[in-house]
């Protein structure tokens, strides 16, 4: 998942919500001010208006609907944004391209993290693009270890290595941590 997707979803919902609210309120106001018994559409002006505006108004409606459908499709497509790519392109130029396998980097990150005593198990995924790579971590850490031990290891060891491996200055990282009690060799019986 991607933070930009969340923001986009909220923006889209707000826009659609605003349009529906305005339409609904306008309809209610119009209904309140209409003389009793007037139908919603009546002979008066509606028919001649569309007759005079034909056919260009229908082309306008068609174009507008195409735009709405495309926006809807795009909105759907970006929900998949942020899923792990198979390889990240670090460089491309006349001399060739440099790709790095996402699985390989993720594997190295996970292995590096498990060297910290606070981390019991680690799993990593790369996301984003070659220029803006992102790291997703799923960690199981010792609940008795201070969080500081984990942040220090990440900020001091893992992320600098990631940055040099991916040849970038920033590697935004999101870690989801499950805390577990440390494995004890005995069980206390009460």
């Amino acid at each position, binding site marked *: 998942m991607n933070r930009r997707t969340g923001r986009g979803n909220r923006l889209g919902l707000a826009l659609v*919500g605003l349009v*529906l609210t305005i339409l609904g309120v306008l309809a209610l106001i119009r209904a309140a001010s209409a003389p009793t018994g007037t139908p919603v559409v009546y002979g008066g002006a509606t028919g001649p208006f569309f007759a005079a505006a034909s056919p260009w108004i229908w082309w306008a409606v*068609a174009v507008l609907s195409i735009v709405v459908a495309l926006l809807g499709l795009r909105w759907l497509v970006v*929900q998949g944004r942020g899923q792990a790519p198979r390889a990240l392109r670090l460089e491309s130029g006349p001399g060739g391209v440099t790709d790095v396998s996402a699985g390989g980097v993720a594997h190295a990150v996970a292995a590096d993290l498990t060297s910290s005593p606070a981390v019991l198990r680690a799993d990593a995924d790369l996301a984003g693009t070659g220029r803006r790579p992102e790291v997703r971590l799923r960690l199981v850490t010792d*609940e008795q270890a*201070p*969080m500081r031990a984990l942040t220090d290891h990440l900020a001091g060891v893992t992320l600098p290595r990631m940055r040099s491996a991916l040849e970038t200055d920033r590697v935004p990282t999101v870690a989801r941590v499950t805390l577990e009690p440390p494995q004890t060799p005995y069980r206390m019986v009460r």
Partner: protein
Amino acid sequence: MIAPVNRAADRAAVRAFRPQRTIPAVVVAVLLTLLGLAVVVETISALAGHPLRWIPYDRMLAWATTTPWRSPAFLSIAALVTLVGLALLALAVVPGRPRMVPARTGDADLIIGMRPRSFTRALAHAAEEVSGVHSATARIHGRAVAVTATTSGWDEQHFEAAVRDAVLTRMAALSPVEPYQVKVKLKEHR
């Protein structure tokens, strides 16, 4: 043991785990796409001289020409549209409960979240380490953690202070971005 306070980093961590509103976004996006496509198909086919009539628009027009503005049917449709619009606006604006307990890292590019179940379990385990406490459970209620400890003694004041201390110490080590108030409840073990 507490990471340096960096407000931008704290805000980023809280924001990262806010609900992304994926399900309402997908529903609205699908409906928008279908609506756009249906209107495009209808208008273009009618302009080409072969109206498809997937949408029964003749019947809709007939309904609109016979239904008065103030009919219950029209008013309830308008009210429904308004309510749906307001609901979408609310989904967009209300931040929602984070799915993770964000931890303080001091770095906006390093975001760590603890699973709420893990967090409360770690706090309960800390309470259980107090001698005389048989078992403990912890729950998050808004901005407070309610700890219920089963003790084998009568010195309520002592247990309450000891349990609170143990829980607060563990919580400080886990360094959540927003501190939780600790409420201790004691039960006597029989």
